[in-house]
C-alpha cells in the first residue's frame, strides 16, 4: 500500500522532469532530422542558457530591479526578463557556433559533425566552469511551500505548475509553427529530403538558422526550467540530462519531434517511478535500459516511420 500511495506523487515529478526532457528532446530531434547529426552539445546549450539567465538576473538585480515575486512563484519581473533575454542570447551563441564550426563541417558528413559537437560540448561546459566554477549556483534561496491536492493525494509547488504550463505552451507553439507556417513546412520538407528541398527553391541556410532558433531556444528554456526545479545549476546540468534526452528521442522515434515529446515524458515518468524499486542513483540507467529495449523491439521508435 505504501508503495502504491507514492505513485501519484512520483507521476507528478515524472511529468515535471518529462517536460524538461521533452523540451530538450525537440531540439535534438530537429537537429538530427534537418542537419543530419546527433548533437551531443545539446545538453550544454541548456546549461549555457541557464548560466546566461543567472548572469543577467544578477546584473538586473544589481541595477536595482525590485526582487518581488509573482504571487506564489519564486521569481518575479527581473528573472522573467533575464529568462527571455537568455533564450535570445543562447540562440545567438548557438548560431555563431554553427557559422564558425558546423557549417564548415557540413560537407564532411554527419559523423564529423557529431564528433565536432562533442568538442563543442566539452568546450562550453568548461567555459561555464571557468567562469562560474564547478560549485552550484542558486537562482534564489526561497523555500516554496507545496500545494496539497487532497483529491489526487499529491503535492505540487507553484513553480512546478509554471514549468508544466510553459512546456505545454511551447509544445503547442512549435506544433503550430511546424504545421501552419511556410518556414515550418520548409523544415519538414528538408527533414524529408534535403537535396530535393534545395532544388525546389527552399533556402536551406535559412531553414538551418530556424532549426537552431527553435532547438537552442527550447534548450535554453529547458535549462532554465531545470534550474528553477532543482533550485540550483551547475556546469554539468545539461550533460547529466543528455542521456535521458537521447533515450527519449530514440524511444519516440529519432527525427520525429512529436516522438521526442512522447519519449521524453515516458522517460521522465519511468525514471521517477523507478525510484520505488531501485536506488535513485540509477535513474539514468533506467532511461538507458528503456532505450535499449526499444531498439531491440522496434528501432524506429514509438512514432517512427517505417523505413
Amino acid at each position, binding site marked *: 500500500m505504501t508503495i502504491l500511495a507514492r505513485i501519484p506523487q512520483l507521476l507528478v515529478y515524472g511529468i515535471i522532469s518529462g517536460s524538461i526532457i521533452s523540451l530538450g528532446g525537440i531540439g535534438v530531434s530537429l537537429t538530427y532530422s534537418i542537419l543530419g547529426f*546527433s548533437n551531443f552539445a545539446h545538453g550544454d546549450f541548456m546549461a549555457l542558457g541557464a548560466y546566461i539567465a543567472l548572469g543577467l538576473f544578477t546584473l538586473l538585480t544589481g541595477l536595482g530591479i525590485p526582487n518581488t515575486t509573482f504571487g506564489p512563484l519564486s521569481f518575479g519581473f527581473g528573472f522573467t526578463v533575464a529568462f527571455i533575454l537568455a533564450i535570445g542570447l543562447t540562440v545567438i551563441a548557438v548560431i555563431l557556433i554553427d557559422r564558425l*564550426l558546423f557549417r564548415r*563541417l557540413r560537407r*564532411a558528413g554527419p559523423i564529423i559533425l557529431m564528433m565536432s559537437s562533442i*568538442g563543442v560540448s*566539452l568546450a562550453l561546459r568548461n567555459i561555464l566552469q571557468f567562469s562560474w566554477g564547478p560549485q552550484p549556483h542558486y537562482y534564489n534561496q526561497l523555500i516554496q511551500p507545496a500545494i496539497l491536492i487532497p483529491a489526487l493525494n499529491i503535492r505540487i509547488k507553484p513553480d512546478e505548475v509554471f514549468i508544466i504550463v510553459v512546456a505545454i505552451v511551447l509544445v503547442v507553439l512549435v506544433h503550430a509553427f511546424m504545421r501552419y507556417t511556410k518556414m515550418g513546412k520548409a523544415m519538414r520538407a528538408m527533414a524529408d529530403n534535403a537535396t530535393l528541398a534545395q532544388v525546389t527553391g527552399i533556402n536551406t541556410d535559412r531553414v538551418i538558422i530556424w532549426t537552431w532558433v527553435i532547438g537552442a531556444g527550447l534548450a535554453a528554456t529547458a535549462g532554465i526550467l531545470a534550474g528553477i526545479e532543482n533550485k540550483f545549476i551547475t556546469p554539468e546540468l545539461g550533460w547529466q540530462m543528455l542521456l535521458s534526452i537521447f533515450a527519449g528521442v530514440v524511444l519516440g522515434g529519432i527525427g520525429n519531434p512529436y516522438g521526442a515529446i512522447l519519449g521524453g515524458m515516458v522517460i521522465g515518468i519511468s525514471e521517477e517511478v523507478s525510484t520505488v524499486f531501485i536506488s535513485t542513483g540509477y535513474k539514468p540507467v533506467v532511461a538507458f535500459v528503456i532505450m535499449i529495449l526499444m*531498439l531491440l523491439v522496434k528501432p524506429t521508435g514509438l512514432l517512427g516511420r517505417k523505413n
Partner: protein
Amino acid sequence: MEHFVGILNYIVFFAITAATYGILALGLNIQWGNTGLFNIGIAGFYALGAYTSALISGLPPSAWEGRTFGGFELPFIFGLLGAAVVCGVVALIIGAPTLRLRTDYLAIATIGIAETIRLVLSNEAWLTSGVWGLQQIPAPLYNSIHGATTRYLQGHPGLPMWLHDLIAKSYDWFYLALVLAILFILYLILERLVRSPWGRVIRAIREDEDATAMLGKNTFSFKMQALVLGAMIMGIGGSVYAHYARFVSPASFKPLYGTFIIWVMLILGGSGNNKGAILGSFTVWGIWAGTDFLTKYLPFSATQSASLRVILIAILLEVILLWRPQGLLPQKKHLSTPK
C-alpha cells in the same frame, strides 16, 4: 645531475601514461579508425578493465574497506586477460541491439553503457567500495624488483645522490618496459589483422556498408568482431592503468580522461593508422602535460586552469577536424594479401 635524473624519472612516468593511452587508442582505432564504429564510451570499458583486473589480481577486502567481494590474488596476467574478456562480453551486449542501425545509435548506447558502468562502480559498494575505490592493487613483480632494489641500495650507501634516485625508480623502468611490450605486441597483432582479408572487410564496411553487404559479407558479424576486439584492447588498457596507479575509483574514469582525450589522440595521429594512434597518444599527452606547466604561470585557480586546458584540447580537436581531418599520419593504402 640530480635535476637531470628528476626529469628522466618524470619522462618514465610520462611514457607509462602515454603508452597506456596508446593501448586505448589502438582499441579505438580498430573500432573507429578501421570499421567506422563510433564509441564514445571508452571510459566505461577502460574503467571496467581496470576494476576487473584489480578484483582478479588484488587482495581480499581489508576490514576498513566497504566491499565484501573479490581480491583473488591471481597473477597479473589473469587480471589482464579477465579484463579483456569482461569488456568483450559487455561490447557484445551493447553491439547486439545497435550494430544493425545507423552509427548514431551505437554512439548513444556507448555513452549509456559508460554512464551505467560509472554508476554501478559508485553505487555497488559490496563489489567496488563505492566512491572510495579499490586500493593497494598489487603491481606485477613489485615485491621482487622493489625488494632487490632496496637491498642493493642498502648494501651500497656511498652511491652519489643522482644514481641513488635513478636506481630507486627501477620498478618504474620495469613497468615502462612491460607497458611498451604490451603496446608493441598489440601493435603487431593489429597490423597483421588490418592487412588480412578480415581487415579489408572491416575497412570496406567503413567506406560503404551496403556495398559490402551486397558482396555477401555478413557486415553485422564483422562489425561485432571489431567492436568486441576494440573493447578487449581497451580492457587491457584499463588493467595496465590499474596495476600502475595501484588505486582506482569512479573519479579516475571521467569522460574527459577516459574518452575524449583518446579520441583527440587518434584523430590527431591519424584514424586508421596504428602508428598514428600511438604517435597521437604521445603527442596529445605531451600537449596535455605541457599545458599543465603553462597554466601554472597564469593567474587562475587550479579548477580554472583545468578548465582552460580542456578548452584548449577541445579547440585542438576542432582545428584538426577543420584543417587536417586525416591527422598527422594519414592512413596508407595497402594490399591485404600476405607477402
